[in-house]
């Protein structure tokens, strides 16, 4: 009886998850297609498209670029976000409200607008499209998130712990390095990995601001123009897999903090 009453809920949940994950599941399944086209019928499991992926030097180079841009831009965004949060958390909220508003504002601006603005500005100062410019774009979009994650961890208790360190003779720098940063380590890592995931997936900014060297999503997009291929599915699955791994890692880091 109880099971029957729950049936609509279970059906609804199944439908909702199918709506969200079915497309990705199809993408993943057909990356193992043992045939030339990622369309039904499924002709059996094969890793040949993953072989092709690894053999594609352009894709591999793009992956390297993605990692480079992701790591460096996320490091910069995390560090800047943390320092901003550290400064704001130790001042009266009323006095930093405006600065906070401007720090968080980019989160509501479309990537396209940010990319256009950067394109225009770098053009004016005579800096050409490049991975560096893409990385700067990614810092712009990820900084608000990194700031918010760090800020949420810097509450009154954290302030008291820092006060305790200073009371015992630590100067500001010692309190920061010996107490604040080690205590915020999970939040800093989480912030880094979330930023990396977003950078790793990001297309619009990378597309508009890069030229010859470019990132994975842009290369996948250009491959798409020459038609469907299970190799594309393999590339997509790979990108998706990395993202999921990082999200799980973040969940683990922040989850541990919550339970302790």
């Amino acid at each position, binding site marked *: 009886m109880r099971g029957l009453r729950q049936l609509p809920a279970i059906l609804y949940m199944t439908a909702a998850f199918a709506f969200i994950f079915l497309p990705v599941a199809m993408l993943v399944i057909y990356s193992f297609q043992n045939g030339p086209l990622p369309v039904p019928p499924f002709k059996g499991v094969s890793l040949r498209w993953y072989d092709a992926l690894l053999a594609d030097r352009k894709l591999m180079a793009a992956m390297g670029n993605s990692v480079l841009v992701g790591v460096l831009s996320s490091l910069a965004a995390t560090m800047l976000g943390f320092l901003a949060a550290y400064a704001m958390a130790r001042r009266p909220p009323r006095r930093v409200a405006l600065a906070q508003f401007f720090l968080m504002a980019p989160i509501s601006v479309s990537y396209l607008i940010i990319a256009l603005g950067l394109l225009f500005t770098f053009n004016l100062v005579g800096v050409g499209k490049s991975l560096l410019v893409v990385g700067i774009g990614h810092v712009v979009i990820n900084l608000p998130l990194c700031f918010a994650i760090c800020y949420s961890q810097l509450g009154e*208790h954290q302030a*008291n*712990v820092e*006060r*305790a*360190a*200073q*009371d*015992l*003779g*630590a*100067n500001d720098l*010692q309190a920061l390095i*010996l*107490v604040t940063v*080690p*205590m915020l*380590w999970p939040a800093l890592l989480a912030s880094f990995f979330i930023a990396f995931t977003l950078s790793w997936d990001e297309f619009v900014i990378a597309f508009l601001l890069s030229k010859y060297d470019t990132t994975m999503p842009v290369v996948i997009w250009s491959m798409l123009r020459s038609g469907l291929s299970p190799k594309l599915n393999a590339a997509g699955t790979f990108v998706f897999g990395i993202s999921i791994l990082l999200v799980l890692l973040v969940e683990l880091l922040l989850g541990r903090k919550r339970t*302790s």
Partner: protein
Amino acid sequence: MTDPLVQLVGLTKSYGAMTAVAGIDLVIGKGEFVVLLGPSGSGKTTVLSMIGGFVEPTGGSVRIGGEDVTSLPPAKRPTATVFQDYALFPHMSVRANVGFGLYMRKVAKAERNRRADETLKLVGLDGFGDRGIHQLSGGQRQRVALARAIAVNPAVLLLDEPLGALDLALRRQMQEELVRIQKRLGTTFVHVTHDQEEAMSIADTIVVMNRGLVEDMGVPARIYRRPASLFAATFMGENNLLPGRVAAVSGDALTVETPLGRLLLAGKADLGGAVQVAVRPEQIYPAATAPENAASLGSARVCELVFQGTHWRARAKTGADGEIALLLRLPPEMQPAVGAEVALFARPEDIVVLSR
């Protein structure tokens, strides 16, 4: 009092239009266990924070050991604080927590660890050095916070409601231990609490605070028995307050007209002035147990009775129209009844005349 160690002179703190501390003068002697007692919002924690250097006063000064420390940061003051939420370093071992202050003072590692272990032993955590903070109970964390603060051998130890989060039994136990540790070290303790029983059980000197001002200051017994202000009389334990008018003054003796009759009491007040007369429930006696020199307070009608083992806790009405409510503690061997009239007596020296 022994040599003065901490001197607060006209200490003031305002936040905009709101005054947290309204000009306090206070001298704390070396080796004293001082408790700042008051309700929340009385300014007691703000005073502690200003002694520790965490809050900058808007006026007045803080002197410790004769030196003006008003503008010094916490690190440069000879104080150490035990925080209300303990504020331990969760990523360090218990030993590293306790040794942190010594590390900041560049004490070598072996010596640091030795002194940390010694301090842990003093607070009853012998052998806990290698544990993590997350492995400790609330009471144990409290002890680590205490050990961490006393490890740097401060001249003044500041305790900000350190026992607030502990359950009653543990709180009683920690109160005793705080006193034991304070006597052993001889360090000056300044302890903030809103719990008047806690204050009485640990303090050498209680400073009663209200609305940013000192209401009364002295040894617990004196403050309880002869409070200096109306607030101190009602905040410390239960009390009966009766309105009165000074009918005659002769030196330190006052004749006060009260609803319970004319009383001859010790005190200072202006002739004809309105005063409050305070008498504790346990200092009002029925005829059977009244001391010889007790004066009559007339009789009262019992309207509520609860037996509490050591006494009957009773509420009674008295005065011309029964408009005066009294709280009484009648002896346990008595067999009072609701509705009964009881004759009441009190010794004049137990009755306090309060004019503020």
